[in-house]
């Protein structure tokens, strides 16, 4: 049994002042109280808005990328001996209702990491461009490590074993693939769970694009070669 009070939901956020409030509200509405916002050096008042909800905020002094924010979340969880860490995008694309699905998947399969899979739920309307980026990123990730699912999903649940074992190093979007590749190396049990996503013009302006994709691929090659 996984107790809700043992789960900390972590939102890596960069300039998300316009949506962070509604994301926090939807998480609260689903019965989760432990929320941490990792502000990745935002120029706007993301941290101030998050603080008005009485939740914990950690702010990187300068923008270092979603990977650095994820590393910080994991380090914080390790230091505070947090049992379960849920990573969720702060741009509002992930549905907070799926938190239950993620937890249930972890419980049922005794998984160490659960990754939200956007491509199972047929109701999800995923723009072609985004599908293409993910398809290419999946191919690339599979070249490094055998993982046929949604390798670029930011919706992830980690248990204590994964929190303690994972030592991530990539600052940018490459962290998604790095986590899978390192988890496989550490023989952690990875499962995927179907999630609902809703893309808006806003959330589409935030995620991966071709330039970031190339950068991600290079950072992964770099890390794999240990340059």
């Amino acid at each position, binding site marked *: 049994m996984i107790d809700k009070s043992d789960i900390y939901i972590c939102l890596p956020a960069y300039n998300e002042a316009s949506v962070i409030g509604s994301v926090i509200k939807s998480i609260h509405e689903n019965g989760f109280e432990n929320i941490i916002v990792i502000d990745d050096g935002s120029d706007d008042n993301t941290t101030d808005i998050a603080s008005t909800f009485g939740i914990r905020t950690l*702010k990187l*002094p300068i923008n270092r990328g979603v990977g650095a924010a994820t590393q910080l979340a994991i380090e914080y969880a390790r230091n505070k001996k947090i049992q379960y860490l849920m990573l969720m995008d702060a741009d509002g694309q992930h549905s907070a209702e799926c938190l239950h699905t993620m937890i249930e998947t972890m419980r049922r399969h005794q998984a160490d990491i659960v990754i939200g899979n956007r491509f199972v739920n047929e109701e999800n309307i995923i723009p072609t461009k985004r599908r293409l980026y993910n398809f290419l990123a999946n191919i690339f990730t599979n070249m490094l490590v055998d993982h046929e699912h949604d390798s670029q999903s930011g919706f992830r649940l980690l248990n204590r074993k994964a929190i303690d074992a994972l030592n991530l190093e990539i600052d940018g979007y490459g962290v998604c693939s790095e986590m899978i590749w390192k988890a496989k190396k550490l023989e952690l049990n990875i499962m995927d769970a179907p999630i609902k996503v809703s893309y808006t013009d806003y959330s589409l302006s935030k995620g991966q694009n071709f330039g970031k994709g190339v950068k991600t691929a290079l950072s992964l090659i770099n890390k794999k070669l240990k340059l």
Partner: protein
Amino acid sequence: MDIRIFQILVSFIGIAFVIWTLKNIITQKSSLKDSWFGLILSLLFIMLALFPDAVSHHIANILDFKSNVNAILFLLVGLLSAAFVSTNIRVNQQNRHITKLSKEIALLAEEIKQNKTKV
């Protein structure tokens, strides 16, 4: 022997750069470790500008190139590639340090905030 304008210009700029770099090393504004590549490249340019045929033929002979122009191009491409790789490695190392520091600052700031709340 005819002295052409580029020979004067390149050697003058090269010598000025060497003096400026050495001055920076002496006044500890930069280190020899950071400046050696620029110094070697400047000296090479000065030598090439002052004695273009002798130096380029010598380099071609050492590298076993038929054409001295190809030898110079190969040498410069090699030197620049080495500089690019070494710069890239250093930038990556610095990036890792910056991220590590940023994370430590964020964790420390949070700890201070929590301690203040407790007090």
